[in-house]
């Protein structure tokens, strides 16, 4: 099965990102089944690694002003978390 791709914005020093630890974060789906949903954001629990091959899916990293980092990381999305109350 093809890898899924996500991206995330890291607002701290990249060196401070915890690897191999279940972490809550916001990711954007870059490869949804229905293309209209590309860039949909979600709060997820996931584990990340700076090693591109460690987890099943690819994670691109951007900094606070959108700067794309050259090398992707990898991610395992454990579950989506609903943090927003119904309108």
């Amino acid at each position, binding site marked *: 099965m093809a890898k899924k791709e996500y991206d995330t914005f890291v*607002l701290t020093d990249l060196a401070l990102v915890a690897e191999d630890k279940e972490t809550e974060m*916001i990711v954007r789906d870059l490869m949804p089944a229905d293309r*209209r949903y590309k860039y949909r*954001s979600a709060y997820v629990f996931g584990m990340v690694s700076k090693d591109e091959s460690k987890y099943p899916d690819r994670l691109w990293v951007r900094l*606070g*002003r*959108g700067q794309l980092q050259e090398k992707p990381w990898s991610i395992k999305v454990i579950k989506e978390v609903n943090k*927003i*109350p119904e*309108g």
Partner: protein
Amino acid sequence: MPYPVFKDNREFINALKANNDLVTIEQEVDWDLEMGAIVRRVCERKSASPYFKKIRDYPGFEALGAPLATYKRLAIAMGMKPDAFVPEISNEYVKRTTGDPIKSILLDKKKAPCKENIWTGKDADLFKLPGPMVHDGDGGRYLATWHFVVSKDLETQAVNWGMYRQMVFDEKTMVGPVLPFSDMGKMFYGKYVPKNKPMPFATVIGCDPLAGVAACAPSPIPEDEFTGMLMGAPVELVKCETCDLEVPAHAEIIIEGEVIPNLLIEEAPFGEYTGYRTSPREPRTVYRIKAITFRNNPILTVSNMGVPTDEGQLLRSFSLGLEMRKLLESQGIPITGVFMLPESTHHMVVVGVKPIYSNIASQIANLVFGSKLSPWFHMVIVVDEETDIYNKDDVIHALATKCHPIRGIRKYEQSVGTPLYPFADPEDRKWSRGAQILFDCTFPLHWPKSDLPIKVSFNNVYPKEIQEKVLQNWKNYGFKD
């Protein structure tokens, strides 16, 4: 009515076409960056408005790019000659917006085109609308780039229309900055949040062109009535489906919902009106949607903020400058005009004045910096009547030659700023702190007349009869211009 009025976006598109200011793009265009790139290039080249007929993944939807990014399009929107000069458009704007406001009228829902399609519940899904990815690196898709948000004051019931950018987060959620000193910021953070009450909102996309102009204008008149003044006719409104707000009946798309108190979600980055991505991704205000209503074959309006000139810069400069003109005239200051340069990303305003008493430039700066308009600009250039405020070359000449590097410059510290100022320190941006400056380009009144430098220009140092002779013979001499 002495001028044509466009009751909706579609009539305006027809007018742009009739004035050769529209490029209809039949080829399919991708909402993911391609559409944004086209609109950006249009803004940078001052090209005609692109009208996108086919958007990838979204059959049935269309989009209009850069709807008001030039003075020509503003003149067309005002029902004026497309080649009207800026001072003519300015005078017409001031004339129409001085006097009695024109109350809006309420249409029956059955007569409102924006109710042709109604999505509620699960159907109300933001990804079913072709929100573009405007710039590479943006924090998300911005459905609302040329639009306005309707909200109502909890206590006074005053209605506000304002442009607050909105990024799609998920199917039901949008996020965006609402600065605390903005009209909606004062309502939401000042009144709803302390009571932990959600604030109803309606985002209006693809409105008639003058409603967009009004939503940009920092006028004290309610924006719907201000639109009516610009149009010379009442705006037709209709009730929302899920709250008691009213929206323009002829708009293309309406998104209804609530602004959620005490919840912030990361938004941005986004290419901003200053021509930079200055403010980083940060937790910002959350809009939760309840309904989407739209016309058949809706036409999204898309602006692309970046380096000059886009409609954010042009219209905000235009209306900010003219609201300053009204303020200064209301105080009896002998100004000859006010022009805010769009290329300054509405940071720099030029005020022409008859300097009939000393320190008049300081009085002007104190008034405009002390007004509610002031967070949006920080440079005031005051020139005398021999400088053409609309001529950039002339203004630069005055600035470089008449402004004393010490005596002519006055600094204003500790003022209200915005987080978007590229020059501001990161900590100042975070707290919306700014600074402002006055460039006084008038010669001091106490100088003896005999010591005043004489401006050496065609209009100033030749007798009238020589000027006329040269002008009459200009083509005979062989000049083609």
